[in-house]
C-alpha cells in the first residue's frame, strides 16, 4: 500500500466510525446518517482499491486519475445538500402547521375562559 492510500483509508475509516458513534450517542438519527455512511463507504472503497481510479479515469476520458475524485466528490456533496434541503422544506411545512394549530387552540382556550 502506498502512503497516501493508508492516509486516505484511515481518514475515511475515521469518518465512518465517527458517524456510527454519533448514531450510538443519539446525536444523529439513522435516516440522516445513512447517506453519510454511504459516502464514507465509497471513500473507503476508493482508498483500498487504487486501480479503481485508473479504471474510472479511462472510462471518463480523464488523463490524470486523481482528478476523477473531483466530480465524484461534487456529486456526493450535491446529493447530500439537495437531500437536506428537502428535509428542511418538509420540516418548515410541519412547523408552520404546528404553529397554526397552537395559535388556533390558544384562541379557543382564551374564548372558553372568558366567554363574552
Amino acid at each position, binding site marked *: 500500500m502506498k502512503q497516501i492510500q493508508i492516509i486516505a483509508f484511515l481518514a475515511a475509516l475515521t469518518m465512518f466510525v465517527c458517524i456510527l458513534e454519533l448514531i450510538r450517542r443519539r446525536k444523529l438519527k439513522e435516516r440522516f446518517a445513512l447517506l453519510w455512511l454511504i459516502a464514507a463507504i465509497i471513500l473507503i472503497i476508493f482508498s483500498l482499491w487504487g486501480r479503481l481510479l485508473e479504471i474510472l479515469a479511462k472510462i471518463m476520458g480523464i488523463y490524470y486519475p486523481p482528478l476523477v475524485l473531483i466530480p465524484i466528490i461534487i456529486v456526493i456533496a450535491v446529493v447530500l445538500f439537495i437531500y437536506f434541503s428537502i428535509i428542511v422544506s418538509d420540516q418548515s411545512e410541519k412547523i408552520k402547521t404546528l*404553529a397554526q394549530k397552537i395559535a388556533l387552540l390558544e*384562541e379557543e382556550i382564551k374564548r372558553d375562559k372568558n366567554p363574552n
Partner: protein
Amino acid sequence: MNQTIAQNLRVLAIVPAYNEEITIQSVVQEIVDKVPGIVVCVVNDGSYDNTADVAKKSGAVVISHPFNMGIGAAVQTGFIYAIRNNFDVAVQVDADGQHDPSFIMKMVSDLTQMNADVVSGSRFIKKGGYKSSFLRRIGIVIFEIINRLVVGQKITDSTSGFRAFSKRAIVFLADKYPEDYPEPEVLIILKKNGYKVIEIPVEMRNRQGGQSSIKGYKSLHYMAKVILAILMQSVKREAK
C-alpha cells in the same frame, strides 16, 4: 343589483396583520360597521407591536402566530378558523386600510349569485381610482399576459389581496395554501382544480399607515420571483 347578504350566511373577514397597530382599529371597525353580522378575524402574524391588543379591543377575534410566518400562512390560518367555526364565506381584507369594506357586500353577493368560488377585487377593471407609475403599469401588463397563458382566463389584478371565497374554496385552501407569493398562485391552483374565479372592479385607497413592502429596484426582484412562482405553480404536481 342585490346588495344584501343572504340571511343565515355566516361571513368571516380574515385580516392578516403584521405590525399594523396604527391602522388595525379603524379597519376592524369599518368592516363591522359596513357589513352587519360579519365576524372579523385578525390573524396576527408574530407582530412585535400592539396589533393583537388593539384588534382585540376593536372587537375582532384575534389569532396570534407564535412567530412571523408570512401572509400566506396567516390567511391559511384564517381559513382553518373559518372551517372550525362553520363559516360559509371568507373575505380576505388587508390590515393597512387599502381595501374599502363597502365592497364586501357586493363581493359576497356576487359570490353566491354567480355561484363562484372566488370573487377577486380588481383595481384595474375600471379606469381611475388607482394611480400607478409607468413601471408599475408595465409590470401589471406583463402579469396579465402571463396569467392569460397560465390561468387561461383574463385576470387583470392577480396580486389583489381583496377577495371573497366560497366554502368549497375555503376547505381546499385550508389544506394547501401557497406560501411565498400567495395571491397570484391562489388563482392558479383554484383554476387548475376546477374552481370558478371571477373579478369585480373595486377601488383601493392609499394605505393609511405602513409602507408597501415592495418598492424601487425591489419591485423588479419581486416580479421575477412572482413570475417564477406562478410558472412553477402551474406545473406543480397535485399534493396528496
